[in-house]
């Protein structure tokens, strides 16, 4: 507790190993009251382990976990006062909807009359009035997950933990329930930690996203920051799509810095801060950051001449693949702008500040790692 602010959930230096394999390393995160925070990453990145450590199902090997300023390491899950929704719904199959939802109230010794009232209220909240006497087997996947959400919310938990709650649903239901989650979060204002591998879910639901990879945090930021200004190579490639150019840094006499690819493509860089001439680097640019036009432009922008090699119509936008100097550049443009045909000569350009430059690691034997 260094700052003056008390977080609803605070993880400090959390580390977890299984048989010497690091699953989560030095994880630091503070979740504010009412915030919706997503842990996003590929499977095996440690996001579920982190959630299970907050829930108390797994003990961290190091670091501390606090809820509202109180350290809860070692406190068993049933004494943490949390709500949790699981990927597999995990409803009690031998209990009716009503009994499922009432379970947490019974364990907390809530009086009978109040249980009835609160169960009714939360079933209304998830729009399942009239389903109280069904058993889970006779509910659809979406209904089951709504029961699971109701069961988690009914006890007014301090924190709501969501463990990939949408991934077992088909595409349409998933979208529907995503809206439902958003609405519930707006209505209840409950502090929520959400684990997902689906970037769309994370981008659309979260106040902040924690992108994780190999047990470590790659970047924490608002959805806009994560998508618009990815700070690492991983975030660039994991979220959305990116163009990657591998090349060597050259510094011209006028102090202009370029990266030249093996095929001779020259890319202008915005700053010279982190690289020197001769460095091997990767340059990442989002397809949305690239614009194409029929003729070259004036000004200090990276400009690449090429030809349209492929195009895909995607409704509101069109995706072009532009071939130039042996590279393929992916470009996404809104459909109201100019249309091009296959083989049209075009110029691609982007603001060098939109590109991320990352030095390539040199392996021990002198070869470059991708």
């Amino acid at each position: 507790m260094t700052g003056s602010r008390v977080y609803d959930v605070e993880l400090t230096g959390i580390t977890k190993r299984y048989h010497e394999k690091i699953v989560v390393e030095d994880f630091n995160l503070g979740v504010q009251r009412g915030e919706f925070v997503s842990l996003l990453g590929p499977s095996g990145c440690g996001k579920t382990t982190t959630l299970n450590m907050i829930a108390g199902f797994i003990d961290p090997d190091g670091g501390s976990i606090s809820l509202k300023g109180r350290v809860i390491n070692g406190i068993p899950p049933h004494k943490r006062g949390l709500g949790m929704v699981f990927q597999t719904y995990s409803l009690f199959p031998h209990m009716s909807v009503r009994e499922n939802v009432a379970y947490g109230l019974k364990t907390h010794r809530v009086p009978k009359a109040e249980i009835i009232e609160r169960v009714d209220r939360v079933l209304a909240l998830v729009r399942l009035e009239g389903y109280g006497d069904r058993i889970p087997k006779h509910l659809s996947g979406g209904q089951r997950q709504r029961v699971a959400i109701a069961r988690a919310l009914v006890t007014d938990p301090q924190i709501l933990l969501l463990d990939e709650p949408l991934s077992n649903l088909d595409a349409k239901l998933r979208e529907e329930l995503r809206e439902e989650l958003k609405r519930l979060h707006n209505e209840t204002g409950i502090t929520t930690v959400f684990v997902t591998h689906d970037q769309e879910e994370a981008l659309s639901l979260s106040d902040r996203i924690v992108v994780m990879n190999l047990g470590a945090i790659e970047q924490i930021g608002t959805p806009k920051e994560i998508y618009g200004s990815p700070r690492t190579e991983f975030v660039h490639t994991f979220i959305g799509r990116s163009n990657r150019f591998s090349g060597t840094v050259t510094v011209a006499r006028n102090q202009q810095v370029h990266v030249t690819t093996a095929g001779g493509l020259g890319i202008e860089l915005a700053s010279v801060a982190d690289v020197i001439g001769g460095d091997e680097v990767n340059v990442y640019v989002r397809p949305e950051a690239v614009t194409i036009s029929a003729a070259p432009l004036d000004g200090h922008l990276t400009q690449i001449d090429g030809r349209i090699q492929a195009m895909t119509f995607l409704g509101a936008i069109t995706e072009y693949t532009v071939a130039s100097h042996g590279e393929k550049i992916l470009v996404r443009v809104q459909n109201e702008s100019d249309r091009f045909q296959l083989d049209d000569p075009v110029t691609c350009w982007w603001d060098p500040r939109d590109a991320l430059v990352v030095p390539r690691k040199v392996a021990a034997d002198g070869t470059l790692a991708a």
Partner: protein
Amino acid sequence: MTIFSRRAAIAVLLAPALVLLLGVFILPMFSMFVTSLTSPEGGLGLDSYARFFTDGYYWGVLGKTATIGAITAVATLVLGYPVALFMARSDGWVRGVITFVVIVPHLVSVVIRNFGWLMVLGDNGVINSALMSLGWIQRPLQLLYNEFGTIVGFVDSFIAYMILALAASLYNEDPNLARAGSILGAGRLRRFLTITLPLSLPGILSGLVLVFSLVISSFITPILLGGPRVTVMATLTYQQILITLDWPFGTAISFILLATTLLVVTVVTRAFETKRYKEVFGA
């Protein structure tokens, strides 16, 4: 859910079963093995094993035991295969009823079932009285208190194991294989011989091995249906332990029996497991 309580939970849950296993299984098995190595003078020695292997009579018993085991195993295969195949080819309530009829007799005590066969096979039994009243025979056939009666009892006792082993194997067969065979011009018998039968080899193997090992260690049926004239390894052991009270020799025989089982199982399995078999059914 700390690491400690997890370990404690595992320990508490497993403790009763493990204590039982250790005290009533591992410990007595070990001390029994030691007893089999006890010589008549009291010290340790292989006397009991030597006594068995140097006497032709005991070799004969061993041979007869293995023969009865092999005949029973093959008989259960021949009789059980049609039942298992019928189970696999039917479904719904038909399969349910057959499964029930296969399993239920097997769950009633072997003593009761053998008693039933005493009534069927005896001199005044169902078969002999029927044949005599039909005038086909003048004197009752000797169906009981010999190897034949013993094998009949064994087949009845263990056919359920064979059928279940075969059925488990036959259930796995993709019905489209038979269709593919018939499109390619194979008739019923050919489809059976070239598709169903080879694919059920694992079931046949496990059924044979299981029935054989069950038979050669059984002593109730040889006592009841074989009588004093049929001496097999298991009845020999039983006599040494409970009647002659020669425990070192009795235990030695039972370990020889166990070793025989393992040997036969290994040899039969090896014989079955050709290179192709391993490729097709191997893990």
